[in-house]
Every structure is written in structure tokens, then in C-alpha cells.
């Protein structure tokens, strides 16, 4: 005979404001098998927990139901409390009276009645709960970091320096990410590559870091502590051990007119190429789509000139399987192609460019060696217009959010322009200046006051070309919305920061959730900003939302420390809410008929065979057996089993039925 304790929480006023908690506790007391029932202002508080512990001891409770917030919030808290009082933690269940009741309904009889129903349902369930013992999993102390931008670099270095193994996977031929494309960085105007490249080299040389460039995640299985990752190493068509990075091949390659991704199409590269001089690793790859050998079957110039004979045309993609204990996603962001802006003529007029393209123009390593020259005719622009919020804060273009970094980099762009073109005039059309950050506001003021950048508050409606000039039709909303028309030589659009094109697919491979803009979702907006809702997978940088460098670096270190904390233990305990095949005494052994429908349905290949033999060792019966190490407890097998021989601990058929019945029969 079970003795259940029911504890109803007011959650301050959050529940008690719309639910008559006293009545809920009272009604719960009437339920058969309930030995104790009460309500209290804050069940999660110390006194609240003590109240539960005492009741368990004094009343000898066999099960506990806490009617309070969502189990996703406090289930661990209360289960721990029960454990401390000597009750098996899995004998404690929570009725969600806040998120699913008091917060979504108005104060009324029906609301209180619903609360009572929810509590009764869980009481009936907990009656059927069985003590469970968590499963121990060993921790593989190797971290997988996906993305080799500043976020991935920082996370890798931190984890590696803590003495753990790191595998850093980068999609492109070199690490460095967007930061390596930037000219100077706000608010200090120090050269981006000067501060980044040492870190890149450190990564390459670190004994604990295994670098895999030109590679992508193919598959991720398993769970926290013991993931199995499959990486696709795309064929670089060179033997990395033989190649010494002399660069002869890249200089000799006849196919020279390929728009360079690194220079955002403003410069050219060859078919066999190193994306940029400081690339890490500084070894080339062959771009098959553009290589005349792969396309037309002849050329092989690189092979002829290579002093070490490192070219491998027959090289194929390679799939590598890795055991890792944790994953850090640091895949960064992309910028919205302003082709969504017919009124601004991007793609139509050569001299309308994006902010990232301007970075390359301003960069000493860029196509113009740092001189601001417009793409169309190489002329130095006398008048330049910057358009902030090009795509951002623009629901009509599908991006209602603020990209956060544009205000600062646009101020920086204008500043750099003024420093390089002294007689030039620069204008920035903006809606608001968002410069919250250490020394940010001061930076913007400097641009306005000292560098005489002209800020005009208003959006641009149209940009068109008329005899060699770009006519920018804007407005000054701060002087009775006077229309402003500027004849500019060049226009820079601060195009919105968006999620990487591959983000959605990647999220699905790893089963982490993502928002409607395909940015990865953190586990809690405030208290778990680097965790995902999948244990053991963490977030760093702009893959979670637009971020500037300082923020990215701090989040990366945050993610790294989470990994290090995880690796500080040798084994983890996992919830035992997994599938089991029933066993019964001879001669039945199990109701399982060995059809293995379950095995075919299992997404984790967690179900194998078990042979039941008699004393003579003769096989009498073949039944299914769940491998507790692999089973994740989804329960798909349960729904498939026709003989009802397999069940999920904690979500058993019996328990679910009890819930259904309890929920429906209240009169």
C-alpha cells in the first residue's frame, strides 16, 4: 500500500494568484493512497525542501508529488531532496501547475479543477513508479570543436591548455573565419590579423589539438560523455605530409580568374590555392569545380612543378570516426546577401558593396593593399555613403532582429575611410546608434566629432546610378524629415548578420534546437547561455546570435570551461529512463517472441539478441535485449512491440494508462 506525499507550491503568487492552492492540497489529501498533503509559499526554498524531507521521514512516504513549476525547471531539485531523505529520487514526480496551468489560465473554478486533475494524474503515476538507479557512463576526455573561427580557436586553446585532447574541424581550407577577413577592429583599431594569426599558429602547433581543415561533421551519435562523431575529410588532392607549402603550384596554376571567397569576390585566386597568405595550415587545396584537369581532363601543371610530388588527383573524401565526450559548436555566421534589396541596386551597381567587402578593401592584405578604391574603376571615392540596418530590423525583408555589430563596424568603416582619404566626405544613414560596450560610445563620438563623419538619422529609400554617380535618396528625420539626396562614388551596405546556410542541417544532425532564423538555441536565455538542450553540446560565438569579437571570445571560453568541468569527472551518471525487455521465471523466460521489430525501429542500434539456454546449453529461446549504454529512452521500440514485452522505465505502459484514466475520471 503506497503512501504518497503531495506538496503544492504557491510559487510566491505565481500559482496561488489563479489557483486555489489550499483546495488543491485538500483535494489531493482525499485521493486514495495519499498519506500527506500540504501547500507552501516556496517549495523549492530551503524550508520547503525540509518540509518534504521531514514528511518523508515522519510519514514514511513511498512516493512524492510536487505540484509547482515545470519539471524542466526543478525536477532535479526535488528528486535530490527526496534522495537526501532516503527516498529513491525516481519516486518523485512533478505536476506542472505553473507553466501549464496558473500562467495560462485566468483565476477560476476550472483552473483550480485542472490543477487538481494534474496532481491526481501524477499521484496515480507515482504509485506505479519503481525505484531506479542511474546509469554510469565513462567520460571520453576528448572534445570536438566545430568551426575554426575565433570562437573555435579560443575554445580549442582553452580546452587543450587544460590538458584535454581537442579535435578542431573546419569546413574551409584554413582556420581563421571572418575575423581573418577584417581590417582593423573596433574600438581600438588594432589590426585583426595581427592579433589573430598568432592564435592560429598556436592552434596548429598545440600538442593537444588535432586540426582537421576542409572537413565537415557527417554524423553525431551517442550522448554526453561518449559521442561518436563521423567527420568527412574532403579530398584536398594533395598529400599534406609531403607538401611543404612552397607555393610553386599556386603561382604556376593557369586557372587564375576565380573570384576569391576570402576577398569576397573583390580579388581572384587560382584553382589550386591557399585562401590567404597567413592561412593555417599553409598548404593548398585543389578546387575541383574550377580545376581544368578535373573539368577537362588535362593540365596537371601543379603536379609537374611540385618539387615534392605531393599532388594527388586520385585522392578521395575520407570518413573518420571519432570518440568524443563533448562538442562545442562554433560555426559562426554569414552576412545576408543584399540582393534582397532591389531598391539599393546591389549586384547591379559594382560600387554598391557590403560591409564585409569594405573590410577587404580597407585591409592591408586585401586586393587594393588597403587603399580605398571603388570596384568599378579603381577610383578613390570622394564621397562615400554607409547604409546601416541593410536588412536588419526590417520585418519586410524577414529579419526583425538587430544584427548588433553593424553600428560599430560602420562607425569604424567611416573612420578608416576618413583616415585614408583625408579630403573625402563620408555619410552614415542610421536609425539608432547602438554602441553599448566598453569604450564603444566613445568610439562613435570620436568618429562624429574628430573624424567628421556625417551621421544622418533616416533610412535610404533608393539608390540608382546616374552618369557615374550613385544617387542615394535618403532622409534626415531629425530636421522635419527633410529628404536628402547624395551623389556618392561608393555605397557600403551594412548587410544583416544571418545564420550560416548549413546551420539548420547541422543542428538536425546533432539534435540541438535552433530558432526561426536558424541560429542555435541556448538551453536557457539567461542562466544557460552556452549550453544547448542536448547535454554535452555547447555553443560558442555567432552561431547562437550575432556577436562581436569580445563577446564571442568570452562565450568561447565559457563553453570551454563547461567542457573542462565535464572532463573533470571520470564517469557521469545518466537517467535510467531506458527500455527493458521483461523477464519472467521459466519456462516462459520472457513474453518476447523474438520478432525484433523493436531492433528495426531503434534509432540507436541499442537492441541486440539474447539466447536463453537450458542447463545443457541448448538454445531454447531467442529474445531481444537492450544495451543500457546505447539506449537513450525514446521508447519507439515500446510502441512497436506487439507482445508488450518491452517497456520504458519511468514511462511504462502501466503508468501511462494510469495517467490517462486518472486524468479523465474525476467526477
Amino acid at each position, binding site marked *: 500500500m503506497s503512501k504518497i506525499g503531495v506538496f503544492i507550491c504557491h510559487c510566491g503568487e505565481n500559482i496561488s494568484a489563479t489557483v486555489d492552492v489550499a483546495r488543491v492540497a485538500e483535494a489531493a489529501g482525499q485521493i486514495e493512497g495519499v498519506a500527506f498533503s500540504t501547500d507552501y509559499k516556496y517549495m523549492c526554498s530551503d524550508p520547503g525542501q525540509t518540509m518534504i524531507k521531514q514528511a518523508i521521514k515522519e510519514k514514511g512516504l513511498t512516493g512524492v508529488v510536487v505540484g509547482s513549476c515545470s519539471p524542466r525547471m526543478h525536477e532535479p531539485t526535488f528528486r535530490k531532496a527526496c534522495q537526501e531523505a532516503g527516498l529513491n529520487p525516481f519516486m518523485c514526480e512533478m505536476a506542472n501547475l505553473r507553466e501549464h496551468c496558473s500562467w495560462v489560465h*485566468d483565476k477560476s473554478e476550472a483552473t483550480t479543477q485542472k490543477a487538481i486533475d494534474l496532481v491526481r494524474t501524477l499521484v496515480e503515476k507515482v504509485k506505479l513508479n519503481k525505484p531506479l538507479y542511474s546509469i554510469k557512463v565513462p567520460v571520453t576526455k576528448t572534445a570536438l570543436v566545430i568551426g575554426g573561427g575565433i570562437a573555435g580557436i579560443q575554445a580549442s586553446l582553452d580546452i587543450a591548455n587544460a590538458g584535454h585532447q581537442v579535435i578542431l574541424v573546419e569546413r574551409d581550407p584554413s582556420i581563421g573565419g571572418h575575423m581573418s577577413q577584417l581590417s582593423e577592429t573596433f574600438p581600438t583599431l588594432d589590426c585583426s590579423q595581427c592579433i589573430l594569426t598568432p592564435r592560429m599558429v598556436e592552434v596548429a602547433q598545440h600538442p593537444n589539438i588535432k586540426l582537421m581543415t576542409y572537413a565537415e561533421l557527417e554524423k553525431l551519435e551517442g550522448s554526453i560523455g561518449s559521442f561518436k562523431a563521423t567527420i568527412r575529410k574532403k579530398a584536398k588532392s594533395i598529400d599534406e605530409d609531403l607538401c611543404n607549402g612552397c607555393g610553386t603550384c599556386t603561382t604556376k596554376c593557369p586557372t587564375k580568374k576565380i573570384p576569391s571567397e576570402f576577398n569576397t569576390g573583390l580579388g581572384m585566386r587560382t584553382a589550386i590555392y591557399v585562401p590567404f597568405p597567413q592561412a593555417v595550415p599553409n598548404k593548398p587545396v585543389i578546387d575541383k569545380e574550377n580545376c581544368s584537369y578535373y573539368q577537362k581532363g588535362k593540365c596537371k601543371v601543379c603536379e609537374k612543378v611540385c618539387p615534392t610530388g605531393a599532388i594527388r588527383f586520385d585522392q578521395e573524401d575520407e570518413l573518420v570516426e571519432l570518440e568524443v565526450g563533448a562538442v562545442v559548436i562554433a560555426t559562426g555566421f554569414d552576412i545576408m546577401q543584399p540582393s534582397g534589396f532591389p531598391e539599393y541596386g546591389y549586384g547591379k551597381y559594382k560600387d554598391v558593396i557590403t560591409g564585409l567587402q569594405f573590410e577587404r578593401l580597407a585591409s592591408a592584405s586585401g586586393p587594393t593593399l588597403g587603399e580605398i578604391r571603388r570596384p568599378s574603376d579603381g577610383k578613390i571615392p570622394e564621397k562615400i555613403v554607409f547604409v546601416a540596418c541593410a536588412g536588419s530590423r526590417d520585418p519586410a525583408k524577414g529579419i526583425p532582429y538587430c544584427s548588433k555589430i553593424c553600428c560599430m563596424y560602420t562607425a569604424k568603416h567611416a573612420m578608416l575611410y576618413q583616415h585614408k582619404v583625408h579630403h573625402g566626405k563620408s555619410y552614415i544613414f542610421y536609425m539608432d546608434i547602438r554602441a553599448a560596450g566598453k569604450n564603444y560610445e566613445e568610439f562613435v563620438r570620436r568618429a562624429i566629432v574628430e573624424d567628421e563623419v556625417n551621421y544622418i538619422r533616416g533610412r535610404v529609400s533608393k539608390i540608382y546610378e546616374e552618369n557615374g554617380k550613385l544617387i542615394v535618396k535618403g532622409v534626415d528625420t531629425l530636421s522635419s524629415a527633410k529628404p536628402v539626396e547624395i551623389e556618392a562614388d561608393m555605397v557600403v551596405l551594412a548587410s544583416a548578420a544571418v545564420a550560416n546556410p548549413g546551420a539548420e542541417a547541422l543542428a538536425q544532425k546533432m539534435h540541438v*534546437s535552433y530558432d526561426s532564423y536558424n541560429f542555435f538555441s541556448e538551453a536557457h536565455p539567461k542562466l544557460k547561455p552556452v549550453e544547448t538542450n542536448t547535454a554535452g553540446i555547447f555553443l560558442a560565438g555567432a552561431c547562437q546570435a550575432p556577436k562581436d569579437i569580445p563577446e564571442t571570445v568570452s562565450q568561447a571560453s565559457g563553453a570551454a570551461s563547461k567542457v573542462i568541468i565535464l572532463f573533470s569527472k571520470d564517469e557521469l551518471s545518466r537517467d535510467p529512463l531506458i527500455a527493458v525487455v521483461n523477464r519472467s521465471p521459466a519456462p516462459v523466460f520472457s513474453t518476447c517472441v523474438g520478432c525484433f521489430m523493436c531492433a528495426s525501429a531503434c534509432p540507436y542500434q541499442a537492441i541486440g539478441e539474447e539466447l536463453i539456454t537450458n542447463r545443457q546449453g541448448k538454445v531454447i529461446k531467442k529474445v531481444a535485449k537492450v544495451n543500457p549504454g546505447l539506449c537513450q529512452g525514446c521508447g519507439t521500440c515500446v510502441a512497436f512491440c506487439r507482445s508488450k514485452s518491452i517497456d520504458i522505465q519511468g514511462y511504462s505502459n502501466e503508468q501511462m494508462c494510469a495517467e490517462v484514466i486518472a486524468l479523465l475520471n474525476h467526477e
Partner: protein
Amino acid sequence: MTEFEPKIIAFVCNWCTYAGADLTGTSRIKYAQNVKIIRFPCTGRIDFMLLLKSFGEGADGIIVSGCHPNDCHYTSGNFHARRRWIMFRGLLDMLGIDVRRIQYSWVSAAEGSKWADIVNSTVNTIRELGPYTEYEKVAGYLEKEANQ
């Protein structure tokens, strides 16, 4: 005369819809009291016999909701659920249960308002359909199932 208040059970998965419904709460979006949630690890876990059971026990309507396609926390549970749901519809016809009494949907952890909409629209649909009365039929069927 008071309006018919349907009894509706929601079978939802722990990772997407349950969290989505939590978000509805945190965003203080109001919806009808008629729907009560039972938490499952995954829609793949849901044995559709449980749905019949619910009708047998006097439910007027049911919501089944989990992760969007490809977003399943367990890779493919929601696909299995979908396939079984399609087979299950046939059975519903056989038992003369109006398919509209079951709302099959996807609600992610980020779709708090969508959850509220689904609840309210389902409640309205069921109100129009009126109470479900033929439990005996279902109960009978379930017994047969059990005895096999």
C-alpha cells in the same frame, strides 16, 4: 444551459512540445483549460492503443504533438509516430471515430504561441463535434485486443 466543456488529453514529447507549452506559460499566453498534458519522452513512444484507451475512458478529443520533422531529439521517433498515425487513421474509421477528434501537430520548444493556438482551435473543433459517446464500442475493441 452551459456550454459543453470537452475533455481533451494532449500526448506531447518532452523535448519540443512540452518545452513549447512551458514557453506558452512563461510568455503568459492564455488558453482554454480543457486540455491537459501527459508527458512522453518522444511521440515515437506513443502507443496508439493509448489513444483508443483515452476515448474508451471518455475523452472527447486528443492532441498528439512532438518535434518538427528532422528536429526529433531521438533522430527519428517522430517519423515512426507519423507513419503509425497514418495507419491508425484507418482504424479510427473502422471504429467510427471522427478523425477530427485527434489533432496531430508539431510544436517546437520555441513555438509558445503556436501551442496556445492549437489548444484553442482544437477545443473549438471538439465543441462543434460535441461529446464523444460511443466508448463501449472502443472498450469492446480494446478487450478483444487484450485477449489476443
